[in-house]
């Protein structure tokens, strides 16, 4: 007779006190690393991600060079201290490689790679602490870092996760909710057009429930966009201040 965790209480509150359509608190900082061309640090709830961008620069691997555009490489890493138990990190953990590839393909359409033929843009993502939603936090961090590096992009890439439990869609799941086998959908959106650039679903979800979940996730992405936009404007203003004076 296990005590079932109620993801959403009958009063409409989740375990941490949020309502179903509320995103966690987000803190952002850009320009945190001195060596990288662009860097950003995002905290979404207790999930912390650090992103560093190097590029466009001369490619390390001659083989991957494209003659008309830049190649984007993404390395996605989760620290061994990021979760409650220490994880032994496998160098070639397929899951991490997959996430890296997905992020790379997401940004390939948004970054203006044709402006930098024969060069390489490297994005390094490090998850320092996981409390659910690591992938979408990483994408947001990458967006900020790319903008910080001054690489031209056609649009922000904002990401958020949503799930479905007890006939209700909930936004931005934390670790407890994810581990309760709630189907989680991660969505990356281009806010200007509202179109979806990346989708990832891990557990089973019925097709009829897909629509409200995508809608809610898109809504969450728009909320994230406001936060990201705000962060960029503040940092640019600060930059302008140092230049002007």
């Amino acid at each position: 007779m296990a005590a079932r965790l109620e993801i959403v209480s009958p009063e409409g509150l989740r375990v941490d006190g949020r309502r179903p359509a509320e995103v966690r608190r987000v803190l952002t900082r850009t320009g945190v690393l001195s060596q990288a061309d662009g860097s950003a640090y995002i905290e979404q709830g207790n999930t912390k991600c650090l992103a560093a961008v190097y590029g466009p620069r001369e490619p390390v691997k001659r083989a991957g060079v494209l003659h008309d555009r830049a190649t984007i490489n993404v390395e996605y890493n989760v620290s061994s201290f990021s979760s409650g138990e220490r994880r032994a990190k496998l160098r070639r953990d397929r899951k991490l490689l997959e996430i890296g590839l997905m992020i790379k393909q997401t940004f390939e359409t948004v970054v203006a790679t044709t402006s930098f033929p024969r060069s390489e843009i490297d994005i390094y993502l490090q998850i320092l602490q996981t409390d659910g939603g690591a992938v979408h936090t990483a994408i947001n961090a990458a967006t900020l870092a790319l903008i910080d590096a001054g690489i031209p992009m056609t649009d922000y890439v904002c990401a958020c996760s949503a799930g479905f439990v007890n006939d209700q869609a909930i936004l931005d799941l934390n670790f407890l909710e994810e581990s309760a086998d709630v189907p989680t959908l991660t969505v990356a959106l281009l806010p200007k057009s509202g179109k979806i650039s990346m989708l990832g679903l891990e557990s089973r979800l019925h097709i009829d429930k897909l629509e409200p979940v995508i809608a809610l996730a898109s809504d969450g992405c728009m909320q994230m966009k406001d936060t990201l936009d705000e962060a960029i404007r503040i940092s640019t203003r600060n930059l302008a201040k140092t230049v002007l004076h």
Partner: protein
Amino acid sequence: MLKNKAFVRKTKRGTVIKVVKEHYLRDDIYCEVATCTKCPSSLNAVTTPSTTKLVPSPHHIVPDTNVLYHQIDVLEHAAFTDVIILQTVLQELKHRSNAVYARARTMISDPKRRFIVFCNEHHRDTYVERRADESPNDRNDRAIRTAVAWYNMHLDGKPQAVLITDDADNRRKAEVDKIPAYSTQQYVASMQGHPDLVDMIAAVEDSNIAAEERFAYPEHLSNSQIAAGIRSGAFFQGKLSISQNNYLEGSVFAQVDKEERTVMIIGRKDLNRGIHGDIVALQMLPESQWKRPVGVILEEEQIEGQKDEDEEEKAEESKMDVENGAANETVPTAKIVGIIKRNWRPFCGTIEKASVSSAASGLTSQQSVFFWAMDKKIPKIRIRTRQAENLVGRRIIVAIDGWVRNSLFPSGHFVRTLGEVGDRATETEVVLLEHDVPFAPFSSSVLSFLPAEGEDWIVQPEHLAGRIDFRHLDVCSIDPPGCTDIDDALHCRQLPNGNLEVGVHIADVSHFVKPENAMDMEARRRGTTVYLVNKRIDMLPSLLGTNLCSLRSNVDRLAFSCIWEMKPDATVVNVKYTKSVIRSKASLTYDEAQMRLDDSKLNDPVTQGIKALNQLAKKLRANRMEAGALTLASPEVRFKLEEDQQDPVDVELKELKDTNALVEEFMLLANIWVAKKVYEAFPESSMLRRHPKPPAANFESLQKAVGELGITLDVTTSRALADSLNNATTTDPYINKLIRILTTRCMMQAVYFCSGTVPESDFWHYGLATNIYTHFTSPIRRYSDLVVHRLLSVAIGYEKAYTSDLVSKEKLSELSDVLNYRHRMAQQASRSSVELFTNMFFKEKLLQEDAYVIRVLKNGFSVLIPRYGIEGYVYASLNDSKDSSEPSPFVYDGEKNRLIAGTVEIKLFAKCSVCVFVEEAGGAARRSKLVVRLCEPWVPGVSVRLDDIRVAREQDQLEEKSGKVVKKAKRV
């Protein structure tokens, strides 16, 4: 606003991790009081504040966790409305007990009660952080007090919020904070208009009941200690068998003080985690503690419904009121001190619906649920599974992993699903599995030993070597309709000297099944063909059983024959055993053969043979009756299935015709003569069959009961018994049949044995009154017959070479035990199958029928309904003995073994009228139950009228259809 909650926790695997959780505080949590002007109105507000003598101003009560947990019954009373439940209280309650939490939730969701939930944990003003050195309990209490204080401040005291807590310390602290607080006793006593509530308050100590005082079984001794104990005589061992009717009563048939006795083990603690079938080590209890067997039928399901294990325990004890004294003697009682060998096997059953908590859609993480095995002797098993929701309402197989000391139930794991409950194929599979009947299709290695020609096999000239050619004889076979595996055929003709030649020809299976090959081993494993109502599990592949071995008409077949020369008065002059080839002229059914018998105009050789056989059979039967053979009766019925063999359409009692008796007589004759021959050839290692004489004690209660009807049963010899039975007539002709049925139940089981292991005097077959017997005539469906065939063929010199196993005393003895087991299981499987179909037949019906009482116990009586040949149990109290709060109108007289209620006496053989219907397998019930209720004689409080039941059932069905039924959790 964001806070962080950090704490350290131990995971399932045993590692310790630190858990950090976010905790947001909100501004949009409202007080939900209708009269509040500051907060927006909500739908579920508390509207009507209460007033009592104690607190005259309008107020709402706020119970704390312990109050909600212990006094949930009081709070469920309609007098309580408009109550504020705090989130802290609910969360604590959930951790404490899921059952009470569920009840609280039901109360909250009822709009008429107006219980609201205030999320004080996430409210900015009422959130309380744990101070260092403060225990979680104290912190929760402080949170509750803070919330109440906030309410009073927010509402300005109109209406007030009043804390109800039984913790005196909490009340003191509340007073310091100027929060009105009272104990349940004080508050309820002061409520106007509901004086009865005070009685409902459960007496509870103020201190917290430690959850740690859990039930723990005594430890098992180690193997070496057990071995030492057995050697020294302190312990003894035996195979545990749990009573079918009472799952808390077990018994062991073991050697105690050089004597074989039945020893009882009663009660959970004494049973100490022994499961039916285990080999256990026991220690005898001192005589002063010996108990009387409890004369009740106790089903674990009746205790079902208690979520807390402690409550279950208490419920059990109250049912098992074990009194020492009164009529029966005490029986040696022991307790289990250790387990020597576990004999668990995978069990079929269903999941207890009540233990499955509703989960999120799609996949769920593992949860613990309880599993009921079909076999009532097995306790509930706790399993962890992800698929709990999907498994409700289906039959599944679970295997037990272990049973630790501090768990009331064993734990196990899921193996596989069989199908939906009630689905015919699934239920049939369950019957087969539960009776350990091997029913998987024959494997390729078994089939490789079939003759290569397959269906095209015919008798070749080389087969005739050593056989007599009987193909010219007018052989015929008489079998039930639809029979495809014909093992026996008969013929009879006049001899020139005026005597008759009678031949019994049995299918020659030993020609096709050679010893020790895969097919033989598989047949030995199966032991016998199992007959279910809708299915037949063959011992041999059907190519042999229904074709090559089967003595079909108009085709040459190999046989093993037994030929007698008899005088017209059925005295045997000489006998001959030989292998042969026959060609049956006709495969008749009993009806067809009977018609030929009755038709005087028919004169063909086959009919003449049958007529002659009939005459002989009558004489043989008369001889047997002289010797003391018994004709007993069983209430067997046969189901008439619809065309497509699916639903039972009607039930009819099996009838015995002349032709049945005819075949039976000659089969018996063959079996007896073959037994003699085989014993002669192999005195140490023949496979024979005996029926031990039942001890006189078995008949005691029956004799007492029939004594009252003026009948005496003389059980000294079978002849005497047969005569008494024939003279046992009363005004009601059915009573005689009933007495025969009950006599059958007093009999011992007939068993196979190896002749070298038992003295010749014990070869006696009581029921047939013959001093030697075996099974020879059905080798297609019984393995023992095949063994006898092999022995006989060596005895007559046909088979020159034979394996030593065939004549090894040890091997035969082992084999007999296995065959006895399989035989018993097959019988039980057949009975279960009949029960299954009976329930299916009664599914939508509600009938009132005559019935006779055949057994009287303390809490009810068993009746037999002659029309359908089924038995049912009528409980002495109308509430199905679930709630013993209403006493039964019946009083049990142990001396005379009857139930008395006023002028009505229920005793053995009493005739009454009952109504019968089927109660569907509910969420927890293992299978649909046949419910029998007394109609006449009329006993108020117990008897029901047919119409009342019909109306009640229709109402139930309507309610279910419209979904209005709200399950209310019941308390003990």
